[in-house]
């Protein structure tokens, strides 16, 4: 089930809200949320839900062994085996065909591909189960003796499909005890609706523009078209992904869970290092705490550690060479910043840092977008003016002009302007008693309008006219 669907918004959500608030005890709420989360998952993935249950069961049992044998080799073995099993599931479903295919190409063999469909959310929940057993091993979180509660942590529907990757230690206490405050619930509702707007309007429109330029015949692509395409994709991927995190954080808050922020205005970063502190924070945190530091961090063979972490960060995004290249691209940039570029950036006016970062990030999205190597090469040559069909075509200019208002709005939405408006709004609400009432009413009206627009956009996305063809 996706959040931006009518079945989620107008069937699943009301039932979920009603149940979660009507049930009296926390225990009942937890079991209800678990049942709803499993239903949510099975809706999109009826076949592979079993894999998630098994994967969780393995970590559950592994952690019990760890807890009983603290400080012994047995505990180490249990962690190793459990993490190994979780990763091997991920490997089989996501990466095995990639390796088989490349093996076949290099050695001219004909090994059969499995052609399995990728279970939804497996990349996210595998990492979550790993944080559980490792946190128990490190004594950062107590062992969970109730399998259902562990499964609730893994399968909790707001963050199951596209993160953020929630660490067990961060959420463990909230499963056992959480209090609902009206303010939290209200902020959650607003956050969810804003996220839905980012997805249903901003990401989708940016995606349509990007697709027009990037998915067609690249030999017809003009220089302007290539840049419009990749800039639109830059907007789309941010709005799409951060929208999902907004909705997850908002829904979590409605039900009393506090998830950490996953994005922090990444496109205002002034260095690549800064960008990765702002983009998909839960993923970089995971790699830092569960891979980079255990490998030795910056204490020993740092360059090798960075290489491994960034190659795997790229590979995590998909089983294709372009994702590895994308990860290694950031390895090179971050290493360069550590060695000399970082200091150089500090000594020049800040604006150059922003330009440098944004340009490299946009080029990075080009690497990320094209998993077909020949198209990737062709696209980059057009982007740099080689082999472009023209500087700009009339069609490109008209698309740009038609979307000018949208582009301005979308670019502003990437900046911390909303935070500024929010702060001004709060200040206004606190200035006097009548203003406070007006501000409160304004918030409710804002929420109603957002829900209305979002619903119209989602219904509109199902608009499917029968087209006449004139031959």
């Amino acid at each position: 089930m996706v959040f931006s669907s009518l079945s989620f918004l107008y069937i699943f959500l009301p039932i979920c809200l009603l149940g979660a608030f009507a049930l009296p005890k926390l225990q009942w709420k937890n079991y209800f949320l678990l049942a709803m989360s499993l239903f949510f998952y099975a809706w999109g993935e009826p076949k592979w839900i079993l894999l998630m249950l098994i994967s969780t069961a393995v970590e559950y049992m592994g952690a019990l062994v760890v807890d009983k044998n603290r400080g012994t080799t047995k505990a180490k073995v249990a962690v190793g085996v459990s993490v190994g099993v979780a990763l091997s599931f991920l490997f089989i479903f996501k990466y095995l065909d990639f390796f088989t295919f490349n093996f076949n190409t290099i050695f001219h063999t004909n090994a059969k591909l499995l052609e399995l469909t990728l279970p939804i959310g497996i990349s996210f929940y595998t990492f979550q189960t790993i944080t559980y057993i490792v946190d128990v091993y490190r004594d950062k979180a107590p062992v969970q003796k109730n399998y259902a509660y562990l499964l609730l942590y893994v399968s909790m529907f707001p963050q199951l499909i596209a993160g953020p990757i929630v660490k067990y230690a961060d959420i463990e206490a909230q499963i056992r005890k959480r209090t609902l405050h009206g303010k939290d619930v209200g902020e959650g509702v607003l956050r969810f609706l804003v996220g839905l707007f980012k997805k249903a309007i901003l990401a989708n429109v940016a995606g349509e523009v990007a697709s027009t330029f990037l998915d067609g015949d690249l030999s017809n692509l003009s220089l302007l078209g290539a840049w419009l395409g990749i800039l639109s994709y830059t907007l789309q991927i941010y709005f799409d992904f951060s929208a999902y995190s907004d909705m997850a954080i908002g829904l979590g808050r409605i039900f009393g869970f506090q998830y950490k922020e996953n994005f922090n205005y990444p496109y205002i970063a002034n260095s690549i290092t800064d960008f990765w502190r702002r983009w998909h924070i839960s993923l970089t945190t995971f790699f830092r705490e569960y891979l980079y530091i255990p490998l030795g961090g910056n204490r020993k063979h740092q360059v090798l550690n960075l290489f491994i972490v960034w190659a795997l960060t790229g590979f995590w995004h998909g089983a294709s060479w372009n994702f590895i290249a994308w990860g290694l691209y950031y390895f090179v940039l971050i290493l360069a910043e550590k060695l000399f570029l970082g200091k150089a950036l500090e000594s020049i006016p800040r604006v150059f840092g922003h330009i440098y970062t944004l340009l490299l990030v946009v080029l990075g999205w080009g690497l990320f977008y094209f998993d077909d190597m020949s198209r990737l090469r062709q696209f980059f040559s057009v982007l740099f003016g080689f082999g472009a069909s023209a500087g700009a075509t009339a069609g490109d200019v008209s698309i740009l002009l038609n979307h000018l208002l949208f582009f301005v709005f979308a670019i502003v939405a990437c900046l911390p302007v909303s935070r500024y408006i929010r702060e001004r709004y709060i200040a206004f609400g606190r200035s006097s008693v009548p203003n406070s009432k007006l501000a409160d009413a304004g918030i409710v009206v804002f929420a109603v309008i957002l829900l209305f627009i979002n619903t119209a956009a989602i219904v509109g996305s199902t608009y499917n006219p029968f087209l006449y063809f004139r031959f």
Partner: protein
Amino acid sequence: MRHRQTDPNALPLLRYSRVGVGLLAMLLAVTMFFFVFSIFDTDATVSEQENRKLATKPAFTVSSLFAGEYIPKVEEYYSDTFPLRNFFLTVNQGISKVTSRMSFRSDDVVVVQNNQPDDFGGQSLQDVTSTSDEENEG
């Protein structure tokens, strides 16, 4: 630009719990209303706006569920027969005018000149051009 860590709790937007409860009640009331409405209203069978037959309730079989066919049909049925669908479609056309999306959604009927009818594999052009909503999953 100042660089600060985002802290959603730094200054709460809502000062009173009752506003938060009001927001939740609004969300629940609206979504519940349409949910219940969709159960009891009579399903439209034809969309004049789109010039096509609307989806009907799919029959449930275990095999269609595990083949991944049943649920997309339910989704299609639910969205095709969603209460006030035509009204929301009209509103969305207004939104599209503001965002100027180039999709074919803003016109009732699009006439396409094409010499090879099989270019689109018998699908409507919408199917061919629509972008996936399920990126970033998995």
